[in-house]
């Protein structure tokens, strides 16, 4: 049977997120409890978490999380890493054996900074250099896969139910100001851990529920800009789209949201002239990056998170607030289970981004 990455697998899912606007950090217990409430929305074929603020001791290093199929590819890949990066620290990612998590790859973590002479030689920014190295590893080294590459944040994922994956990675030992989680319901056996969510590129992480019907249009558009969609999953394509729009094209989060979940022409038509021109521009200029079909996504980034539904809201997603905490989930139950008392709870409209960032006094301290 073909592995994920050799063909396109549709899937349904559950997502959940917790964000502390005051920068307070909490361990992974609550996010596991939240996502496990939606157990039936996943089928044991993929679960994962993204956490922000977990590596303050290495805040200036890019934290690479890698899956290796075997030790030989690890040797090759480490040679590549050493050539391109100063490695401040490297170790296995601590795990706890779990009966339902099997077929484990080798899971390693590296805290790295790009070698200075490499940056000078390539004349690239640090971020761009890292993106290119990650793309190269994932594309060229069969059996090696970088699944997390941001600073002071990390992705933890596996094949299994998300609550089991959380236990497996000992998430109670990490403290984050922002957690996102994902339970996957693919319609085929992915056969590979890299297919689980979240997907990450630098500090952008995506958890995604839905099957996008525009997949091949999006894939072929984004691949023009140097990205390689090796996994053939919707989520991977979405991750690259946001990286491209925000980091490379300099769009704001809102603008990027209005590209991927563009308002209908009938809505744009009713806008005041300047706004209309701007929205028309975004739809036209980035037409190939409009994402069609059902999705609810959470885009995590340093200092914030954005939740977004497709423009018809074909997937459920609710947002709740309590004091300094913001909760986002596929189902209200997944929020109530960890925070029964909410100041506010609502279902954002299709295509309307919900952007939450750290309070000013908490920024920079993350």
């Amino acid at each position, binding site marked *: 049977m073909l592995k994920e990455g050799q063909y396109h697998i549709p899937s349904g899912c559950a997502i959940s997120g917790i964000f502390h606007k005051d920068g307070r950090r909490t361990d992974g217990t609550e996010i596991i409890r939240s996502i496990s409430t939606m157990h039936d929305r996943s089928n044991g074929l993929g679960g994962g978490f993204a956490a922000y603020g977990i590596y303050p001791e290495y805040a200036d290093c890019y934290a690479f999380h890698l899956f290796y199929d075997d030790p030989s590819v690890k040797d090759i890949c480490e040679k590549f890493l050493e050539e391109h990066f100063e490695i401040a620290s490297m170790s296995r990612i601590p795990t706890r054996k779990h009966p339902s998590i099997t077929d484990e790859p080798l899971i390693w973590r590296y805290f790295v900074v790009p070698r200075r002479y490499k940056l000078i030689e390539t004349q690239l920014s640090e971020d761009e250099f890292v993106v290119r190295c990650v793309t190269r590893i994932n594309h060229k080294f069969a059996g090696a896969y970088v699944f997390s590459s941001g600073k002071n944040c990390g992705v933890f994922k596996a094949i299994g139910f998300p609550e089991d994956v959380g236990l497996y990675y000992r998430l109670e030992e990490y403290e984050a100001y922002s957690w996102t989680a994902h339970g996957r319901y693919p319609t085929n056996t992915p056969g590979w851990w890299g297919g689980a969510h979240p997907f990450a590129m630098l500090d952008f992480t995506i958890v995604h529920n839905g099957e996008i019907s525009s997949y*091949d249009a999006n894939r072929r558009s984004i691949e023009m800009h140097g990205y390689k969609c090796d996994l053939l999953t919707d989520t991977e394509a979405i991750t690259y789209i946001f990286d491209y729009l925000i980091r490379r094209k300099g769009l704001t989060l809102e603008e990027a949201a209005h590209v991927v979940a563009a308002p209908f022409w009938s809505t744009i038509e009713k806008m005041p002239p300047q706004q209309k021109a701007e929205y028309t521009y975004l739809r036209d200029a980035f037409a190939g990056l*409009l994402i069609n079909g059902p999705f609810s996504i959470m885009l995590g980034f340093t200092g914030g998170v954005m939740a977004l539904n497709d423009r018809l809201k074909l997937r459920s997603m609710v947002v709740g607030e309590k004091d300094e905490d913001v909760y986002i989930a596929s189902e209200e139950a997944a929020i109530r289970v960890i925070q029964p008392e909410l100041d506010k709870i609502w279902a954002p409209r299709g295509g309307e981004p919900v952007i939450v960032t750290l309070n000013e006094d908490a920024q920079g301290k993350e």
Partner: protein
Amino acid sequence: MAIEYLYPQFEVLRNPDRCIACRVCERQCANEVHHFDTDLQKMVSDESKCVNCHRCVSLCPTRALKITKTNHQFRENANWTGEVIEEIYRQANSGGTLLSSMGNPKNYPIYWDKMLINASQVTNPSIDPLREPMEIRTFLGKKPTTIERDENGKIIPNLSPRLELDIPVMFSAMSYGSISYNAHESLARASKAMGTYYNTGEGGLHEDFYKWGDNTIVQVASGRFGVEKDYLDAGAAIEIKIGQGAKPGIGGHLPGTKVASDISRTRMIPEGTDAISPAPHHDIYSIEDLRQLVYSLKEATAYKKPVIVKISAVHNVAAIASGIARSGADIIAIDGYRGGTGAAPTRIRDNVGIPIALALASVDQRLREEGIRDNVSIVVGGSIRNSADIIKAIALGADAVYIATAALLSLGCHLCRTCQNGKCNWGIATQRPELVKRLNPDIGSERLINLLTAWGHEIREMMGGMGINSIEALRGNRLMLRGIGLNEKELEILGIKHAGE
């Protein structure tokens, strides 16, 4: 000589019990097939003149007429068919080049019919176009490469000139001369009503039609007929015609007999002179020359109009398109080997060029591999027959399509393929006033509007079935297609999987 004789292709079957000798058929047939025999006191026909255009059949009040293929035949031979034999007789007789009209009718594969469209089931929902917006608006033109912002950080909409289409279908080039005034008026009015564009072809723009300039693409072809400042300014876009699918590599020839006063004025040539379009543009002998013409036209129109470069689908089309995408052109139009014509040498029409689906797939893929797909929009024509062909073309990577044969069919063309005679009984491919007036532009434009409206409905329905509610999410979305009965190489070129994969 006896060997010059060719048995007529068609038989005119007249039911004597039904015929009331009203002589409508006689009046309607410009080919003079029918006449009333006063001695016999009945209608008779000379089927040797019949082109099977169905004009008489359609207007016979008693349904007394039908036209059928003759069953007279040569001794059967799979290789030396009757058609092949007759063509040799004709050429041995005349010493001339065989001429034909409309698109390549031969039994080559039709790739549109070897691709199937996807639909949503369970994992994502199909969308009901009767309940939800279903967007097919399309922009044609270059995409911006850099985002510019003003001092307040607001995006400056730095879009280059473009065409906005309410439906991704345009009427492709047919010159005034090759088709009639009324046919042009029908196309122009339908374009305006439907929010799309028609194309002047290389015959210039009739002075009466300047008022539809906003829905007109003005063509600059190798003969440069009718090209002047006002003409360029009148259109919404300018198309440089390099090639035509029906006759790649050769020019055109409108016989002097068709260059009557109106046409001579529109083409800006003396009355009665042959209008000859050379095979190449004599100022374009290479790609860098094309660039100069593109920018000459942009200069002439103050960079306010997108420039289209139209080529026919030939073997090396991907590389040619790549060159054009770097030439400053905003849109590439590709015309497949099935594309129609008012007249072309038969051998060229039937043997030169490649199928549009293959050309489109390889051009789109090549431009993406080179990272320049956003430099240009791609418009394809050359036998788009229905809305499913459009869906398939867009999924392969086209931004929009050009239709012409389908448009003429909706105006009444019966595809008899004898446009070159200039005696079109339907008032389309003719300049004879008594024939032209048979095509009423009020009705013609309405029929074109109906056709596009119907196709629009069907496009929306199929998109909704795929779970797509915006045409840009279909563009280049090749996973929405599967091949049927195609070999590995064909699938590879089309960039699609086989059904069942």
